[in-house]
Structures are given as C-alpha cells and as structure tokens.
C-alpha cells in the first residue's frame, strides 16, 4: 500500500530541460496567464488547442505523460460528482432534454456545462502540477517573493506569505506519508477500511485523523524551532545567495506565451460559447 505514489502536486521532478532551466518568475507568470485563459475558455475547439499546448509542454519538460496525469486519480470521484451535478442541475431555458430519470432531467446545456467545468478543473490541476514538477521549492520561493514584492508597499507581508504557501505545499506530501504510516498501523491491528456500510466506514476515519493532526502540529513545532534556531526573523533585510536572472530561454518562452495567449484570445472571442 502506497498512498504517496499518486501525489504529484508539490513534488519536484529534477531534470535538465529548457523548462527546468527557465527563470521561476517566467514560469509563474506563464502559469498565471494559462490559468486566466482557462477561466474564459467556453468551447471544445479552444480546449483542444489548450490540450495540444499542455501536452507539448509536458513532453518538452520530460515528464512522463502517465505521471503527469496520475495526480488526477485521487480526484476522480470529485470530478465525476461535479460532472453529474452539472448534467442534471444546469439548464438554460431553451435547452433540449436528453433523458429524464425520476425527477432529474439531463439537458444538452447541462452536459456541455459539465464537460466544460470538468475539463477546466483538470487543466487547472495539470498546469499547476507542471509548474511544481519542474521548479524546485527554493526557486519557486525566490520567484514568488520577487513577484509579490511590490505588495509590501501596501503593507502585505509578501515574504512571510510566500514562505507559508511553500511550506503548505511541502506539507501535502509529508502529511500523505504520515497518513500512510497511520493507516498501516491501524490495518495491522485489524481495521478493514474497505469493509462495512457508509456509517461504519466513516467512523473508522476518526481514529486516523487524531494522530495525523497531532503529528502535524508536532512537525510544525519542530519546524518553528528549526527556523528560529537559525535566526529566521521574516523577510526584512534578507539578501539572496543566488540572484535570479532572465536568459534567452525566458525570452523565447515569453514569445511563445504571447503567441499562444493571442491565439487563445482569438479562439475565445471568435467561437461562440458552447454553454
């Protein structure tokens, strides 16, 4: 039993591709642009173009396609549920009924809405996963810090904010590892997590979360001690060992992003919404 196998968010996959060597700021900005574009995509054609682009980036970064997608596996039940909800509950006044089931009616507009929203979540997840898979935690922090620095002027503690965010990302994997250990310890004493009815199954979850939270707090406390013992006192006046520098790769990436964004905007505007 391995829980951590399918967790790809927050994992760094070391590599030597152009995407790995890019300045983290370029990658973060590109990710933000892609996410923004996604929020406006409302046609299958545009999604197809987006799919081709994303696939190219995944292959270009040397990430095995199966690995990039396996992070979606744990999310599958949520995705299906979301799709079903849209299918039955969303309907425009002029929608055509596909089929009726008891008091539920599925319409073609609900079907399209379900498809669009599910695709959107899948792509949002994939795009952010590509960022974390190709960017080490250190450069991710550095890049975000610089990008959010202007916000310090309006009193936002950007450095602390970034630190918190990055720690949270790291803890995803750590907590999954701890959960794996706790589940094993309980299975070893005869708990069958897959047996029983819904209520019985739910009741088995509580004894799992107690040690998980306690260990999480313990971890957090250890981290605080480790940071304080090295005199961490927030971002003010800290200098960097490595200064970030944009290079040719970033120029090229910027050019590609502008072209792609233009193409997407064109598609979004010219193709009528299919919802």
């Amino acid at each position: 039993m391995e829980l951590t196998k399918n967790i790809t968010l927050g994992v760094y996959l070391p590599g030597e591709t152009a995407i790995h060597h890019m300045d983290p700021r370029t990658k973060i900005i590109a990710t933000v642009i892609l996410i923004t574009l996604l929020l406006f995509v409302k046609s299958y054609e545009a999604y197809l173009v987006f799919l081709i682009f994303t696939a190219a980036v995944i292959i270009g970064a040397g990430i095995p396609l199966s690995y990039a997608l396996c992070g979606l596996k744990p999310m599958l039940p949520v995705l299906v549920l979301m799709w079903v909800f849209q299918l039955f509950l969303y309907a425009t006044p002029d929608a055509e009924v596909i089929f009726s089931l008891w008091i539920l009616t599925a319409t073609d507009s609900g079907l399209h809405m379900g498809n669009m929203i599910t695709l959107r979540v899948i792509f949002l997840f994939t795009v952010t996963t590509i960022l974390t898979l190709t960017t080490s935690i250190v450069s991710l922090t550095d890049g975000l810090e610089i990008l959010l620095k202007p916000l310090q002027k309006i009193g936002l503690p950007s450095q602390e904010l970034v630190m918190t965010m990055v720690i949270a990302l790291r803890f995803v994997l750590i907590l999954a590892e701890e959960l794996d250990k706790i589940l094993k310890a309980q299975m070893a004493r005869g708990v069958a997590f897959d047996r029983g009815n819904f209520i019985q199954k739910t009741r088995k979850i509580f004894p799992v979360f107690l040690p998980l939270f306690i260990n999480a707090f313990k971890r957090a406390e250890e981290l605080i001690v480790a940071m304080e013992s090295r005199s961490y006192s927030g971002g003010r006046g800290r200098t960097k060992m490595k200064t970030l520098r944009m290079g040719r790769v970033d120029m090229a990436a910027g050019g590609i992003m502008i072209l792609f964004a233009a193409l997407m905007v064109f598609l979004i505007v010219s193709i009528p919404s299919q919802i």
Partner: protein
Amino acid sequence: MPIEVTELSYSYKRGTPFEKKVLHEVSLRIKDGEFVGLIGPTQAGKTTLAQHFNALYTPQQGRIIVNGCDTTDKKADLISLRHDVGYVFQNPDYQLFAPTVGEDIAFGPKQQNLNSTEVESRVRKVMDQVGLDYNSFYKRDIFALSGGQKRRVAIAGVLACKPKTLILDDITAGLDPRGREEILKVIRKLHCEENITIIFISNSMDEVAELAERIIVIDRGRIAFNDSTRLVFKQSAQLKAIGLELPEVMTITDRLSSCGYSFPTTVLNLTEALQAISKNLAEGRVND
C-alpha cells in the same frame, strides 16, 4: 504460522519517475517458534520486507504464503492474518491513537468483535505481560507517557490481538539502557513462555546477537546472509563491508585475543565472554 517467501520483488512508487526497486527476488522461510533477527543497513528494505509478512504490502512479483494463505489471493482473510501476525511499528507515535492507554490496547480485540469481558481480560493480561500496572495505567493519557512506556503500550496493543507471530520493527531505538533492557526482557519472555515466533528487526548488533537464533542480513534489497547467529557473525569482514558492525562483545574478545587470550570462534554475549576469560585466566594463559 510458517512464513514462506519465494522470489519476492518490490519496487517503490512503481510506474512513476521515482520508481526504486527495494526488494530483489528475496526467498526465505520462517518456521514456527523461531526467533529471527532481521538486520541490514538503513534503506536495505527490512521494513518493506517485514510489512509483506502481514500483507500491508502485497508482492508485485513472487509469492508469500503465511500459514498456507497466499497474500495475493483476493479471497484471503487479511484481517485475521493481521491478527495472527502482529506488527509493532518503529515509531509508537504512529501506532497509538486512542486517548487513554486502556482504550488503545483494547482497540485490536474490539476489531475482532469480542465481548467486553473478554476484551477487558485480554487488556489486563497483556498489560501485565509488558509490565504496566493495570490500575495506575489503564486510564492514563497516552501523550503523557515516556518513550519506554509508549513502546510497552504499543507492544501490548498488538499482543492483545493474540498474535502467533510478532514482528518487532526496531523497537528499542531511542530508549535509555534500562528501558531497553526491560523491553527485551518482555520479548524474551514472550518467546520462551508463549512460544510466539519473533521477527526482530534491529540496528543493534548486541541485541540481535543476544536474542536471535537465526539472522537474516539484507543488503540493498537482497539477502546477504541467512544462517544461525553464530555463523553469520563469523563473517565479520563481509558484515563490515556491508556497513554493519560486530556486537560489542565480539570487538572486545577480538582485541583480547590479539593480547594472547584464546576464545571460541564467536562469542555472542557477556556470559560466554566471561566464561572464556575466566577459563583463560585459570589456565594461566595470560599474566594479568
């Protein structure tokens, strides 16, 4: 509960770029009533191998048959198998989750749907076995216990399931000498009096030398040695090459023999060492 492992291989995170083969075609047998030491450097695959014995991992390649039950069999009753093969984990913090000592020990038997008097009597018995006083510890808060006490509660919680085989995963790590001695006394008693098969994973060669009848040495996912304790520790050069040390007693007797003492080939514990030294002195082999 004889355990039969044939050509077992396991890769961690199989199918991802992080795939790492941790067990390579391991074959071994453990008979009833044995006391087996499982040693090897860190990351050698000891824990992964041992967690196959109670079906926490199922083999990716090869087979494991525990008491005639193949763990890859979809219809196998893994729950009762896990009660028969108890596993005490490296870190008790992952194992203990109930608020009080009594509730935590009772957790295993309760999964077996026993009635409350039976659960109660089992809890009493195992607390006595591991040397925890029932009246003063039953209602004690788990998180207020010392490291040694937590280990005892962890062992008691597993014993309460009445295992026939007990896997102990480095349970003396981080304990002070007295805590360690007391835990080992409990283990020895369980093996001798209850005739429980013990699989003892440890990083302390002294403990393994003193307790185990047979030793299995794992190195980078392969079995390096699988023989009686005496014969394994005879291979001092190879053990050192793997990154393991000899028991402290043996290091001392080695030194003494270079000063003119004579010892039998391997000395595994203090009693044997003392006998040999006094024999040497009596024979007048050395001066002082």
